[in-house]
């Protein structure tokens, strides 16, 4: 006899008040101001005088049960049994007495986590799933992030950049990782290789055709079987055809490159939000440490740190000094690929006599 299946309880998004630190629950909507006593620590003061110190830590993000339970042990001992996670996957711990801040920091550091990521730091790189779990990854985002954070750990621990720096990685150019002041994205550089024997059995052809951003995919008969063909001159190698049609293989050991984009800024502060712009590509996809990509990121960070004024994000610094000087300062080539040819691209061309010498 078939076992009766359990109906799901469609409870949706849980109420956070039951998991919220009591000081936050008590002062919900009643905060007065905040300070930054030291890197990795924020102090929020409520209108009634209540104080809450937040200690932020960096982790490996993909947590094993041992690491998760270690974070819980630390929270039980120092943070009244509460943890919050930030957008960039950094856990935050809370104390209400100043003298307990230092022991909490020590406990986190002793357990191998890194305290930092506040204010003008380079926060943890946000990233996509990569070879660990994605179906069209050109690289391993977790590995790139681990290798890069090893080199940027001081920038995470200290908050001595001109303003905060958000770095993201995405393991293909669909860019799930998001917009960052610096974004390290994979760029597939060759059209998909089609296994025509499998297409008819595996792929819903109209939906594959619909998904192509440049209308480069057409239905075709190949060797007497229904299949698909790609106009290779049009193809931008985005890989969007692969998930609905795995016989259109986009992953390629040799021709997958990393590219670096800068100037994404999601805040409205001082200017409207901005998207990231291409600065470097053709960077070898070189596991397990990706040293070439890290070297370029460090060069950009160094030039930004030395050249930007207080509060300037990377996009604002470049807007002030101009792109010609940016390419000079970071010693990167400017190529025809930097000039946009996508929809609306003429808006990005210089139609003025503003020239930098």
């Amino acid at each position, binding site marked *: 006899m078939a076992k009766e299946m359990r109906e799901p*309880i469609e409870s949706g*998004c849980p109420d956070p008040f039951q998991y919220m630190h009591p000081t936050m629950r008590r002062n919900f*909507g009643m905060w007065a101001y905040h300070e930054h006593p030291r890197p990795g620590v924020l102090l929020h003061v409520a209108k009634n005088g209540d104080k809450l110190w937040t200690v932020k830590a960096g982790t490996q993000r993909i947590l094993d049960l041992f690491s998760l339970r270690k974070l*819980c042990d630390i929270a039980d001992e120092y943070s009244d049994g509460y943890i919050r996670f930030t*957008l960039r996957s950094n856990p935050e711990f809370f104390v209400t007495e100043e003298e307990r801040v230092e022991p909490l920091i020590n406990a986190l550091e002793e357990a191998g986590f890194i305290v930092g990521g506040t204010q003008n730091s380079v926060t943890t790189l946000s990233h996509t799933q990569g070879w660990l779990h994605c179906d069209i990854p050109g690289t391993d985002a977790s590995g790139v992030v681990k290798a890069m954070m090893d080199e940027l750990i001081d920038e995470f621990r200290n908050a001595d950049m001109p303003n905060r720096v958000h770095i993201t990685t995405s393991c293909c150019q669909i860019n799930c*990782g998001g*917009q960052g002041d610096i974004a390290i994205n994979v760029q597939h550089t060759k059209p998909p290789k089609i296994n025509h024997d499998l297409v008819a059995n595996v792929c819903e052809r109209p939906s594959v055709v619909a998904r192509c951003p440049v209308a480069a995919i057409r239905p075709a008969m190949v060797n007497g079987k229904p299949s698909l063909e790609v106009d290779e001159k049009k193809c931008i190698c985005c890989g969007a055809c692969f998930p609905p049609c795995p016989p259109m293989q986009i992953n390629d050991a040799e021709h997958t490159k990393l590219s670096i984009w800068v100037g994404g800024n999601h805040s409205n502060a001082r200017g409207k939000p901005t998207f990231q712009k291409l600065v470097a590509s053709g960077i070898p996809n070189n596991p397990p440490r990706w040293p070439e990509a890290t070297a370029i990121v460090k060069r950009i960070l160094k030039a930004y740190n030395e050249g930007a004024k207080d509060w300037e994000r990377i996009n604002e610094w470049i807007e002030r000094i101009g792109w010609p000087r940016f390419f000079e300062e970071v010693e990167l080539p400017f190529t025809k690929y930097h000039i946009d040819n996508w929809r609306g691209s003429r808006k990005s061309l210089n139609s003025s006599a503003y020239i930098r010498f």
Partner: protein
Amino acid sequence: MAIDKYPTPMLDQLEEGPWPSFISGIKRLRDEHPNEKINKVANSLLGQLEHSYETRKGYWKGGTISVYGYGGGIIPRFSEVGHAFPESKEFHTLRVQPPAGNHYSTAMLRQLADSWEKYGSGLITFHGQTGNIMFIGADSDQYQHFFDEINDYGWDLGGAGPCVRTAMSCVGAARCEMSCTNEQKAHRLLVNNFTDDVHRPALPYKFKFKISGCPNDCQNAIERADFAVIGTWRDDMKVNQDEVKAFVEKKGRQYVIDNVITRCPTNAISLNDDDTITVNNKDCVRCMHCLNVMPKALGVGDDKGVTILIGGKRTLKIGDLMGTVVVPFKKLETEEDWESLVELAEEIIDFWAENALEHERCGEMIERIGLVNFLEGIGVEVDPNMVNHPRECSYVRMDGWDEEAIKWFDRQAEAS
């Protein structure tokens, strides 16, 4: 029983260096966990990952699985090299909706860890880029049991595929003086109203809600959400002149001029001779910069509400799009206000579901049909706050001009 470990010379190099290593974490599951199944899954996963590092290629493909009663919420992954690494050949991720604002008690985290230990690989991410808790690595026999257990004590799956996705909101009013709305209420009202659309993917493509309590937009809502709710205010910003003076005294006039006064994008602030400031609130665009620099001296106003922007998204398939202002200001105070927020979301999702092409995000549809058609479709009047500037191209048919002008003046008269 000792297991036959796959060699991992490349991954081993990711254990070097001071940053915490996810490879060390997976190895702990392989070597130290008391459950032999978890040891084997971790070993197999490491083997496949090392193979990816050697060959520079990924080996996962998707499929279709879900829990009983739902159509989505799980990312199915089947290994293309399962013959070589059989223990992790099925390695699905369950997307679970976090509490609004990502608050957790350790009791609840431990309960989740205990359940995941019974049924999964032992790998968890807080949180994926869509905002879900990612329970990475359940096989086809186990995911239903895991879901049943955590669903019984309060957790539900998030969205995957063409559906309403898991929402995200900033810490907001729980710990931030910049908060201009009740972020967690907006978050839960919106996404929980569409629970059916979360669990049963039947929309043209994904639809995301994100909520930030102020224009600093810490949730990255404008760039990443089809429906972005941004807290703001419309009366005067709060100025504590004593704190302004204290700030000027501490930092110096030059610092204040360079970092506050000249940084205002609309030149709305001036520094007075007595080290107080004057703010021209009519010119202020609520960019947040001066409040960020002087949080003790400057604060948000009292007449709070939200701005709603529609159509932000990532690159696929016409390039990255920002959200567009569709509601410049909306009070969220009375129950009626909150209900009308949900109704607006319903209007938008219904209109988009009926008019979008296959695999077309809401922002792409707006680009294709034009903002005016979209506004007419959802019953929202035009407003000059929706544009950076009026049209530049004169090729347009305008024989309805007089009627439209009357509408504008009627609305102005009604509002005053």
